């Protein structure tokens, strides 16, 4: 029985670790669904969960590269705070002076400034790590303190608000979604793209004479992926916007609507951002030389060096990428709150590292996947939200999350030992 199940999954080309993570996630969800009397697996809660996961998950994709190359980044939470403060000041204090309040380009310039600064700071950290050979643990521990302090200096500790209205849409909420029509359009498009990619990849493999999965397995896999995409879209499109808010939005947008007008949320914009980031990062990790070098360097730094890979420059690039992703995460986090306070992103570095590690990224280097990190972030957030809904005290929540982290890594170690990878 066990063997036939194993063969079934082997044919599908889904590894057991992925199955394990999804199994754990489903288990957690069902457990909370029961203990919250059916409030957990609702469109409303899953919508919120998806939005709450986005910021940490975006950073976790970058943390995968960092941990794969045997580094660590303890500074992302503080950097997220600093970048949030800077972007808050840029959009609320600086740009309105030149462009006027509510100018259409404010949010765009703000986001670019944030990403640019994030990349610069990340690249600098990477340079200190790669070229000056100070261990990443120390450099980013320093950064952890420096950026939190620097965030305070931006506004002398004052909370920045209100943020630009368009910018705030990037954080989700009733208005910050694609809406029903666009969500369906995106869902259908994504499903078609996924099918196309899988079919094309099969064709190229066949052309090169490389053995492919059996047809039924490929078919099942395609069916699963399409069901997942369509199911998610349908779910997000079944979360109704409260009538009064819907009426307000319709009025603000100048729609002429009947009295019994209702609208649904659809996919939240931060989730769209997360999906885009995850897809791009997956392509980078699997289809670019840069990604290949990241894994090669993590597997055997000396071999990478001898193969002509400039591992120092690679370190700079990896941390620059992390900085850019932290800026994107900062946009999501600050836009969601609608204001930037001094404590934005506090402890996020630990959530991000935990997400990557729960997602199967090995601290010894060389192994880790983008989808794993995203699922890891989702597991962490599910635990946290679920416990909050059940009404577990905050200190106990920390205790549980901490123990789950250690347990997850232990299971991963056992798994690796068994499979010999």
């Amino acid at each position, binding site marked *: 029985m066990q063997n036939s199940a194993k063969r079934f999954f082997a044919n599908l080309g889904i590894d057991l670790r992925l199955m394990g993570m999804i199994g754990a996630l489903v288990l957690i969800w069902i457990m909370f669904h029961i203990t919250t009397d059916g409030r957990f697996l609702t469109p409303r809660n899953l919508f919120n969960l998806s939005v709450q996961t986005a910021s940490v998950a975006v950073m976790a994709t970058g943390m995968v590269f960092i941990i794969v190359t045997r580094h660590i980044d303890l500074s992302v939470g503080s950097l997220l705070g600093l970048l949030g403060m800077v972007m808050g000041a840029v959009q609320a204090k600086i740009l309105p002076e030149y462009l006027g309040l509510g100018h259409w380009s404010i949010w765009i310039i703000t986001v670019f400034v944030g990403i640019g600064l994030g990349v610069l700071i990340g690249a600098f950290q990477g340079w200190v790590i790669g070229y000056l050979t100070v261990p990443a643990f120390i450099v980013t521990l320093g950064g952890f303190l420096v950026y939190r302090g620097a965030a305070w200096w931006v506004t002398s500790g004052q909370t920045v608000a209100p943020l630009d209205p368009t910018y705030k849409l990037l954080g989700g909420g009733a208005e910050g979604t694609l809406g029903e029509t666009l969500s369906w359009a995106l869902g259908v498009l994504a499903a078609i793209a996924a099918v196309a990619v899988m079919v094309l990849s099969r064709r*190229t*493999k066949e*052309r*090169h*004479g*490389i053995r492919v999965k059996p047809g039924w397995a490929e078919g099942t896999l395609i069916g699963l992926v399409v069901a997942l995409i369509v199911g998610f879209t349908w779910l997000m499109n079944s979360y109704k916007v409260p009538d009064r808010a819907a009426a307000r939005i319709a009025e603000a947008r100048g729609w002429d609507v009947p009295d019994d007008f209702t609208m649904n949320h659809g996919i939240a914009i931060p989730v769209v951002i997360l999906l885009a980031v995850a897809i791009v990062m997956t*392509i980078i990790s699997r*289809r*670019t*030389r840069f*990604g*290949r*070098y990241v*894994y*090669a*360097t*993590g*597997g*055997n730094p*000396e*071999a*990478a*060096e*001898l*193969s*002509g*890979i400039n591992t120092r420059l690679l370190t700079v690039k990896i941390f620059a990428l992390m900085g850019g992703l932290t800026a994107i995460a900062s946009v999501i986090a600050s836009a969601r709150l609608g204001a930037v306070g001094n404590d934005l992103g506090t402890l996020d570095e630990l959530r991000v590292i935990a997400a990557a590690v729960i997602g199967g990224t090995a601290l010894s280097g*060389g*192994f880790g996947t983008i989808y794993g990190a995203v699922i890891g972030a989702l597991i962490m957030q599910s635990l946290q939200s679920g416990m909050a809904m059940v009404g577990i005290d905050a200190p106990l929540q920390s205790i549980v999350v901490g123990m789950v982290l250690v347990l997850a890594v232990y299971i991963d170690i056992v798994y690796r030992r068994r499979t*010999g*990878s």
Partner: protein
Amino acid sequence: MNTQTPLVEMRDMHIAFGGIKAVDHVSVDLYPGEVVGLLGHNGAGKSTLIKMLSGAYRADGGEIFVNGEKAEIHNPRDARRYNIETIYQTLALADNLDAASNLFLGRELVTPVGFVDDDAMEAECRKIMGRLNPNFQKFNDPVSALSGGQRQSVAIARAVYFNARILIMDEPTAALGPHETQMVAELIQQLKSEGIGIFLISHDIHDVMQLCDRASVMKNGKLVGTVDVSDVTDDDLLGMIILGKKPEGVAC
């Protein structure tokens, strides 16, 4: 004996680590279609000497000539540009990647849009492995799952695939069984006949006597001498390695 231009000439190479002269003013050369053995105890400096040629170390001094022209080799990429390929004793494989990724590491085949073309690389990998090690089948496993001999053949394939002119083999048979050792010996003969020059680092005298045309012996970072293998006996070579003594009546 040879009037051709040497394929490689290393002149007066020296390098020190923290005051220890690992390689102390050593000169060696290599002609097309020739196998030169580098012999010596552990720590004699043979691997260090060769790492200056492969770009892994930067020499403190000395000059390298490739085809009679001065070559600037500061890193492994430079060495590869001169068609110098190296099979390291440690094999230098990324254990977490599969055979094809290791074969093309640093020189990936890419699609027109610039993405790595894994399928094409796997197909090429299957071709060359079919030639070098027909029994090899584990194309989709990380190389950590391979046996010592299979790993070795991946490392060899990497050096051979890219049309090396100069091949450095650092203890290529150390981890191999008799059958695989024989395969390496045949491969060396074949590469030799294609006009490739090979530096073979070894501390197995029999390997050297069997496979090499000349042997350069090192001791304590210095070159004891270079001899034609056909002019000397096993004992002569042992004397050079152990005592640093040049055999009598042989031009060094």
